C-alpha cells in the first residue's frame, strides 16, 4: 500500500536488462545480416534476382518474413482455437474417456516427423500455403491440448471443492477458478507450440508455401551460403523474438504465485 512511489523509480537495472537485452541482440544480428550478407549483393546477379536488390529495397526478404509470419500466425491461432477447448473438454466429467482419443490424434501429429507430415498432406491437399498451415496446425495441437488438460488437472482439488461447496456452478468453476489457475501451464504450451512452429514453417518451402525456408532450399542446391545463412539466421531471430514476446505477454497475464 505504501509502495505507491513513481513508476520510474521502481524500475531496476535488471528490469532494463530483462526488457532490452534480447531485442537489442536481435536487432544487432539483423543489422549484421544486412551489412555482411545483403549489402555485397551485386545488382543484376542471380542472388539479386532471388533475394532482392539491396539498394532498391529487399522486397523478397521482407515478403518472405511476412509469409513466414502468416504461416505460423494462422496455424498457431487455429491450433489455440481447437486445442484449448479440446483440452478443457477432456477434463470434463463424462468426457475423460475421450482423452485418449484426442491425445492420440495430437500425439500422431507430434510423433510423425514434420517433413513427413508435409509430404503426406501434400498428397491429399496439393501444394501451397494451406497445406503447410494445416500441417503446422496439426503439429501445434499436442503441446496445447496436453498443457491445457494438465493445467486444469493440476488445480488443487481443495480449491474446486471449496468452490463447489460455496455454490459456484460448473461454468463458474471453469471460468473463474480452473482456467485462471491453469493459465500458466496452458500458456507455456502455446508458447512452446508457437516457437516450434517458427522452425517447422521453414520446411513449408518444400511444398511451395513460401516463407524464409525458400532461401534455404534454394541456396542448398546452388551452394550459395549467403542465401542459406539469410534464411537460417532470420528464422532463428524470428523464433527467439516470438519466444521473447510471448514470454513478456505471459509475465503480464499470468498470476504469479511467488
Amino acid at each position, binding site marked *: *500500500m505504501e509502495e505507491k512511489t513513481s513508476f520510474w523509480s521502481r524500475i531496476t537495472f535488471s528490469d532494463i536488462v530483462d526488457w532490452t537485452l534480447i531485442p537489442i541482440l536481435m536487432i544487432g544480428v539483423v543489422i549484421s545480416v544486412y551489412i555482411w550478407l545483403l549489402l555485397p549483393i551485386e545488382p543484376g546477379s542471380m542472388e539479386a534476382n532471388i533475394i532482392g536488390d539491396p539498394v532498391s529495397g529487399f522486397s523478397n526478404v521482407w515478403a518472405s518474413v511476412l509469409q513466414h509470419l502468416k504461416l505460423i500466425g494462422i496455424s498457431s491461432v487455429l491450433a489455440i482455437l481447437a486445442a484449448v477447448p479440446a483440452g478443457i473438454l477432456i477434463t470434463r466429467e463424462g468426457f475423460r474417456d475421450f482423452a485418449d482419443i484426442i491425445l492420440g490424434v495430437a500425439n500422431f501429429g507430434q510423433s510423425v516427423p514434420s517433413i513427413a507430415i508435409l509430404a503426406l498432406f501434400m498428397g491429399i491437399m496439393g501444394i501451397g500455403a494451406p497445406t503447410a498451415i494445416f500441417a503446422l496446425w496439426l503439429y501445434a495441437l499436442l503441446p496445447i491440448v496436453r498443457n491445457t488438460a494438465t493445467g486444469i488437472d493440476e488445480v*488443487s482439488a*481443495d*480449491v*474446486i*471443492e*471449496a*468452490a*463447489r*461447496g*460455496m*455454490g*459456484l*456452478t460448473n461454468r*463458474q468453476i471453469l471460468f473463474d*477458478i480452473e482456467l*485462471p*489457475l491453469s493459465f500458466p501451464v496452458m500458456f507455456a504450451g502455446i508458447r512452446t507450440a508457437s516457437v516450434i512452429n517458427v522452425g517447422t514453417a521453414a520446411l513449408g518451402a518444400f511444398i511451395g508455401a513460401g516463407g524464409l525456408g525458400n532461401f534455404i532450399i534454394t541456396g542448398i542446391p546452388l551452394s550459395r551460403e549467403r542465401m542459406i545463412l539469410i534464411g537460417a539466421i532470420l528464422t532463428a531471430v524470428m523464433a527467439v523474438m516470438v519466444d521473447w514476446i510471448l514470454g513478456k505477454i505471459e509475465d503480464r497475464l499470468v*498470476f504469479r*504465485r*511467488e
Partner: protein
Amino acid sequence: MIKLEHVTKIYPGTTSPAVDDLSFTVPTGEICTIVGPSGCGKTTTMKMVNRLIEPTDGEIYVLNERGEMQNVLEMDPIILRRNIGYVIQQIGLFPHRTILQNMGTVPKLLEWDNTRIRSRAEELLDMMNMPHEFLDRYPHELSGGQRQRIGVARAMASDPPVMLMDEPFGAIDPINRNLLQNEFLRLQQEIKKTILFVTHDIDEAIKMGDKIAILNANGQLEQYDSPAKILSEPANEFIEDFVGADRTLKQLNLIRVEEVMDKKPFLLQSTQSVEEALQVMDEEGQDYAYVVDSDRRLQGYVSRKDLKEKSGWIDEYTTTAATSLPITMNLRDALSEMLMVDYSTICVVDNRDRVRGTVNTAMVQEALMETHSSGKREEV
C-alpha cells in the same frame, strides 16, 4: 436447525452403506460435532446436507432465514449451497484472488454491491481480530492460522444460518488449533450459527460440540447426546472405547472453575492489623489466609506462623502467591495447576485480578462425583 431423517448413503458399486439410517436433529444455534473412526461416513453425512453427495434414501431438512423447514432434496443444489457456509480442512482459498475477493465469493454470487461486500469483509476481519490491510493480500502471503481464519470468515460472509465444517482446524499445529478453537467458540456465542462440525478427534468433538454424534465404522449412529452425557453415560462399549479410558478426566474439560469454587472464601484485608488478623484466623480455624486490597485484588497470603507475636499491619508479612486461576479456566487445566503447587487452596481471579473465590482438589473431586451420579451436567 438441521434435521436428518433415516438418511442412508450407499455408494455405487458397494453393497454396505457408508451411512446407515441416520436420524438426528441439530437445534438452532448449536454446534453438533460428528465423530467416529475413519471411514465411518462422517464427511459423507456432512456433504449430504449441502448435496455435494446425494443421499440414497431419507430426508434432510434445514431451517432457512425465514424460519421455514426446507427439504434440501427439493432445492436447487446451487441455491442451497449459497445459503450454507462451508469450511474444509484444506481451506481451499482461491490463490489467484485477494482476501477481499475470496471473502466476497458468495456475496458476489448473491449479487451484493461492492461497497456492501467490502464493509462486510471488514466486519468479518474485525470479528477474527485481523487487520483490514489483509483485504488486498493474497492467500500465500498469510500464515496457516490466518488462512484458516479467512476460510471460516469466507464461509460466514453472507451470514448463512447453517454452516458445515469439515475438520476445519485439522491441519493447524496444536497450539494454534487450541487458539482457533477458543476464538471460534467465543465467536459462536455471538453469531449463534447452527453448525455441523466433522472431526476425527474426540477431544475436539467434546470441546466444540453442544451435541456429539458418534458413528461406528459401519456408518451407524451409536450415540447422539451432549458431551457431558456421552462422558458420564456412554451408551455402550463402543462409545466407552471410543471416548477412552480417561473419560472421567475429559469431563473436567466441560466444567469451569467458576462452577465449583467456594464463592465466599475466607479473605483478609491488607489494611487489617496483625492482631485483628490473628483473631479472625483463630475464630475460623485457619492457618493460612489470602490477602486482598480494598478492590479485592489479590495481594498474596499470610500464615499464622508468620504473624505470631508480630505487630503492625499484615501487608508487611504477606507472601506473593505462586499462582492463581482465571475464572474461565476448565477444571482439567485447573487441576493440573493445583498439582504443581503445594497450596491446599488456590485463588480464582477474574480478568481484573480480583478474587472471586477459592478452589481445592476436594471441590474438583466432589464435582466429578456429582456428574457421575446424576449425569445431569448438560443443564448447567
